[in-house]
């Protein structure tokens, strides 16, 4: 499932909702992205997340479908916030649940790596020197590129 919202989310409540009564789930992995308080040497006052409504939902759903095709997941969830966020606030949540931990770990990493390079969201940082749009990072591209070939995996060998 995917959600794009201005409101905060409760990580524990989301994990409980996803795994409740699902006893085939043996492991749940959650990634939470937060707003940092510094960019290089400069403190950040806030960050505004903008997105392309319609395409952002479509891309998140497609990225999630790709993860579900590559790994044996029992369930998954992506929540991405938009709007103005201050340091310490949560930006994004990715949860993956599987019978065994390896699939959950790998799929979670894949989801955040692909989200960062494919889903149409942009960050506007506010500092004491004014507001500027964050530039894309080469190491994010490299992280996403790791997943272009499906990893060799043997579901029977997990755990």
């Amino acid at each position: 499932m995917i959600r794009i919202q201005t409101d905060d989310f409760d990580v524990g409540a989301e994990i409980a909702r996803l795994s409740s009564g699902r006893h085939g789930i043996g492991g749940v992995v959650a990634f939470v992205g937060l707003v940092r308080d510094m960019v290089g040497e400069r403190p950040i006052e806030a960050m505004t997340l903008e997105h392309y409504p319609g395409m952002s939902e479509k891309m998140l759903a497609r990225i999630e479908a790709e993860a579900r095709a590559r790994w044996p997941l029992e369930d998954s969830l992506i929540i991405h916030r938009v709007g103005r966020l201050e340091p310490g606030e949560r930006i994004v949540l990715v949860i993956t649940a599987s019978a065994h931990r390896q699939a959950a770990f790998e799929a979670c990493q894949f989801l955040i790596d692909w989200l960062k390079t494919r889903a149409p969201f942009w960050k506007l940082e506010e500092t004491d020197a004014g507001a500027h749009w964050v530039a894309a990072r080469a190491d994010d591209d490299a992280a996403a590129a790791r997943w272009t070939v499906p990893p060799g995996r043997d579901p029977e060998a997990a755990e």
Partner: protein
Amino acid sequence: MKLLYFAWLKTMTGVAEEEVSPPPEVTTVATLLDWLKARGPGFAEALADPAAVRIAINQEYARPGDPVRPDDEVALFPPVTGG
């Protein structure tokens, strides 16, 4: 044709969304960008480096040679930085 601009492309062009009727020679993403560049200094500056601009046609990523049609929704935006 509906055009959408996001992030610094919106800031630099001063436009978030507009309806345009490009001339018949605008048939691809590349020719659309050339036509847009000639519309004014903000557009010329925003589109000066085509490698810095991502294009989506009807909410799907597109390349310079891909066709654009009058009823398309075309979005222009920088490389994404979410997550």
